[in-house]
């Protein structure tokens, strides 16, 4: 039995489930955090989404049969949670006085990027929610369009077009900043 099969068996057994899930959190939190953080930008928001992801995973444990790797399964949950969060945040921002521009990335104590990284993250932050996901999943996570199509429920053709447009927007943002 492989290590992933053993972990799955421990997750499915009530007496070992808690310890096994704690191990899942320890093993996967850093990578998931960074993937989420790219999308939501701010640490506090990334923390909210990451914790939500694990809570949702815990609640869905009974339906996870090991057809995919745990990392893949968690990634899908994280991307959907991120999309839900982004849509909710955008709606709330449209009703508040808090302009997104007042949150200065350069002054964020939890952002340690150079000018190019700052520009890139700012450009990403301006993309519509789903397009943001498409871009990050493709560019940073190296996901195949077929995988993204299953996660986002969007056709491969539409995803390719969305990615292409996202790249153009980001490069245009770089040109304006230069």
């Amino acid at each position: 039995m492989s290590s992933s099969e053993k972990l799955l068996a421990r997750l499915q057994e009530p007496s070992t489930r808690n310890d096994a899930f704690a191990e899942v959190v320890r093993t996967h939190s850093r990578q998931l955090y960074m993937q989420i953080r790219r999308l939501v930008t701010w640490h506090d928001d990334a923390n909210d989404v990451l914790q939500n992801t694990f809570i949702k995973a815990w609640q869905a444990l009974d339906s996870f049969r090991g057809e995919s790797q745990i990392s893949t399964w968690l990634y899908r949950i994280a991307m959907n949670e991120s999309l839900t969060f982004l849509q909710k945040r955008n709606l709330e921002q449209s009703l508040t006085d808090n302009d997104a521009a007042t949150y200065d990335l350069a002054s964020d104590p939890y952002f340690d990027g150079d000018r190019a990284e700052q520009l890139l993250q700012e450009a990403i932050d301006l993309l519509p929610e789903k397009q943001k996901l498409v871009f990050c999943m493709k560019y940073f996570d190296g996901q195949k369009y077929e995988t993204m199509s299953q996660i986002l429920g969007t056709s491969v053709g539409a995803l390719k077009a969305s990615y292409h447009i996202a790249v153009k927007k980001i490069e245009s943002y770089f040109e304006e900043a230069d």
Partner: protein
Amino acid sequence: MSLSEYNNNQHSPFKVPEGYFESLESNVMKRIASPGTTVQTTRKTSVKPLWHVLPFVGVAAAVILALVIVGLPPESLPSVSENSATEIKITQDISDRNIESVYDYLVLDNETIYDYATE
């Protein structure tokens, strides 16, 4: 600069508070042990000035005022002050709390309000 020139593999620009990942596991497991809890976003937001939805407020206030005046028995109406026979004071408390009850009364769902406020 084009995206092809940007090297995205070497450095993550994101930092976390000290001890974040070390405490994450216990935080998650505590929440799992307490079912029914939901994540509270840590961002503070403030509601836009009320004038954004004043048209709704105006209509709602007029409707309610009309119903109050028509529906109330005579002894419930504001009485004329003995000191000022022609002065009738009608005060309206349009606090945020009352706005919510107004919305309920008019069967306005939040989505409709948000759509209007963001036009």
